[in-house]
């Protein structure tokens, strides 16, 4: 597995200007009557990439997946797979396979027959089918269940059968629609890592649709955040989290504090934002100009809470009152209420078992953060 790790570390075809995208959505629009599910969307996905479409329900992510599988036709625009336009190609002739949210296992067939179904359609000789089915059963560790019917399996086992069936044909691209949605939390976490290993092992391109940000962050090389049929940002999990492109993305992924203000001063790499609550000096300001309206976004864990006044308190600090405390074991969440009534979310890792003089409800406390702890957003 060591070698797989190193492949993953250096994998970034989207950063290479010469790399050719494997799947391209070009200005794709899909309307259902008056409702626009996907709006003029363009997106490139590269070979062997583990790509996640993340968004709330109804944001058009599933429609995008179904258009690639061929179940829906785009109202306008183009979808290319390995340079070939998919327009007019019916689902059964597309070199992509899909794993359905409901698993869609054929209830009247055994596990074996379910997995063999796609291979039979290709007219593969039966000896070869048997061999491939065995291989697939071994891959998902279901050999003892080959002769069972789907209703004789648990939810986790069904999920594996669905996975085995969808990769049995060695498709160029595997589409996964909420693949772990029906599993309980513990099983879901285990399966996330299995899916990642499987993708590396088979060398396939995975396109997964999910509404679970943790799932997307864990598994994907890149994530596209979608809202109302449009892509808000496409980036790696770390970029999405640490450098969100807009307030929507910052707020959608994880938890965030937003401060509104005006750019009072702009130096080479330091911007000063004057707001009602707090004055901020920050790096990561991008290309904002003096006088422009802006938002400063900072994640809770990047804010320090202390009972003592920080050394340089004119900027990036404010005094308030501990309003709420949530102890989560690995960390503690403090909500600090500022004099103007705003409540700031912060979280601290509990790196020691016992904390001396812990902050408690109604204590006076200072919040502070470093000049590179947040980002400036203009939209």
């Amino acid at each position, binding site marked *: 597995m060591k070698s797989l790790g190193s492949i993953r570390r250096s994998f970034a075809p989207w950063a290479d200007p010469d790399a050719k995208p494997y799947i391209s959505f070009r200005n794709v629009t899909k309307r259902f009557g008056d409702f626009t599910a996907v709006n003029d969307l363009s997106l490139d996905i590269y070979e062997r990439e583990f790509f996640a479409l993340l968004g709330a329900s109804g944001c058009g992510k599933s429609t995008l997946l179904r258009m690639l599988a061929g179940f829906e036709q785009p109202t306008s625009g183009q979808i290319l797979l390995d340079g070939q336009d998919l327009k007019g190609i019916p689902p*059964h002739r597309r070199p992509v396979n899909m794993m359905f949210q409901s698993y869609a296992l054929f209830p009247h067939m055994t596990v074996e027959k379910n997995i063999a179904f796609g291979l039979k*359609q290709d007219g593969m000789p039966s000896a070869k089918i048997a061999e491939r089915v065995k291989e697939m059963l071994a891959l998902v560790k279901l050999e003892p269940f080959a002769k069972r019917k789907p*209703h*004789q399996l*648990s939810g986790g*086992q069904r999920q594996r059968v669905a996975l085995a069936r969808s990769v049995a044909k060695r498709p160029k691209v595997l589409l996964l629609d909420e693949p772990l949605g029906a599993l309980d939390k513990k099983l879901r976490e285990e399966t996330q890592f299995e899916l990642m290993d499987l993708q590396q092992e088979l060398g396939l391109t995975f396109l997964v649709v999910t509404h679970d940000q943790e799932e997307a962050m864990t598994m994907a090389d890149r994530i596209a955040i979608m809202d109302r049929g449009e892509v808000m940002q496409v980036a790696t999990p770390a970029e999405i989290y640490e450098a969100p492109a807009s307030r929507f993305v910052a707020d959608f992924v994880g938890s965030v504090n937003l401060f509104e203000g005006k750019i009072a001063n702009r130096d080479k790499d330091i911007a000063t934002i004057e707001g009602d609550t707090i004055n901020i000096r920050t790096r990561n300001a991008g290309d904002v100009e003096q006088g422009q309206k802006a938002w400063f976004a900072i994640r809770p864990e990047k804010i320090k809470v202390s009972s003592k006044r920080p050394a340089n308190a004119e900027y990036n600090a404010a005094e308030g009152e501990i309003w709420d405390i949530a102890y989560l074991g690995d960390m503690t969440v403090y909500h600090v209420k500022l004099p103007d009534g705003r409540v700031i979310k912060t979280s601290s890792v509990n790196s020691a078992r016992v904390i001396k003089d812990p902050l408690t409800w109604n204590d006076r406390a200072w919040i502070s953060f470093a000049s590179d702890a947040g980002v400036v957003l203009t939209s």
Partner: protein
Amino acid sequence: MNATLSRFNIVSIVLGFTFLYLPIVLLVIYSFNESRLVTVWAGFSTKWYVELFSNQGLLDAAWVTARVAFISASVATVLGTFAALALTRYTRFHGRTLFTGMIFAPLVMPEVITGLSLLLLFVAIGLDRGFMTVTLAHITFAMCFVAVVVQSRLLSFDRSLEEAAMDLGASPATTFFQVTLPVISPAVVSGWMLAFTLSLDDLVIASFTSGPGATTLPMKIYSQVRLGVTPEINAVCTILIAVVATGVIAASIVNKRREVQRRRDEQEAQRANNIAFGRNT
């Protein structure tokens, strides 16, 4: 729910079942009557059954009925299934509501009207009345029943099964025969059985559309009863009841067994899963 039966409940059940089954029980009992007089009990005998099997007229009618029922049920099942597919699948064509309403209409249409309109049609196109016309008539009305039965199953059918089949490379036809049909087959089979029994006991439409040489059993029974009820007729009816009852009971036993087996399998799978993940429930 309260499991104990109150007196009121017992009385209701007894009254209800008496009302439903007393006439049938009487008919069965009198089919074993020794006497020629239907209403006078003169001891147990099976002679009317013996006599029945030497009554060529009744046997011919039974054979006609069986053939008409088999052919019309089979054709009606095919047509009705396709109608149901069209109505549940292509939800966006013009006049769908009208067509859905029209498929239900024959269910509530008085049989006399169906029979008469079919008769007029056959006369108009110059089709000689006989085996062919009565079969066609039965196909026409049984088809609607099949469509309704299959349609209700299709409404709960998971479309992603078909999408999965196509996604795995199956053409639309292969998808239909290897996935859709096997999954909805219980509904198709019960549609067929419904069509078969409807054809078996239809009198009104058959009377309008049948012709010489194609007398069905209900027609035969009806015409004989007009000359007076004979124990022979009771015997025929008892056999019919036995056939239908056996079918219904067998079907429900098979269903029940399958259901029990399924539940047991599901519990076992769940238990195996719990053990695998070290959880006790």
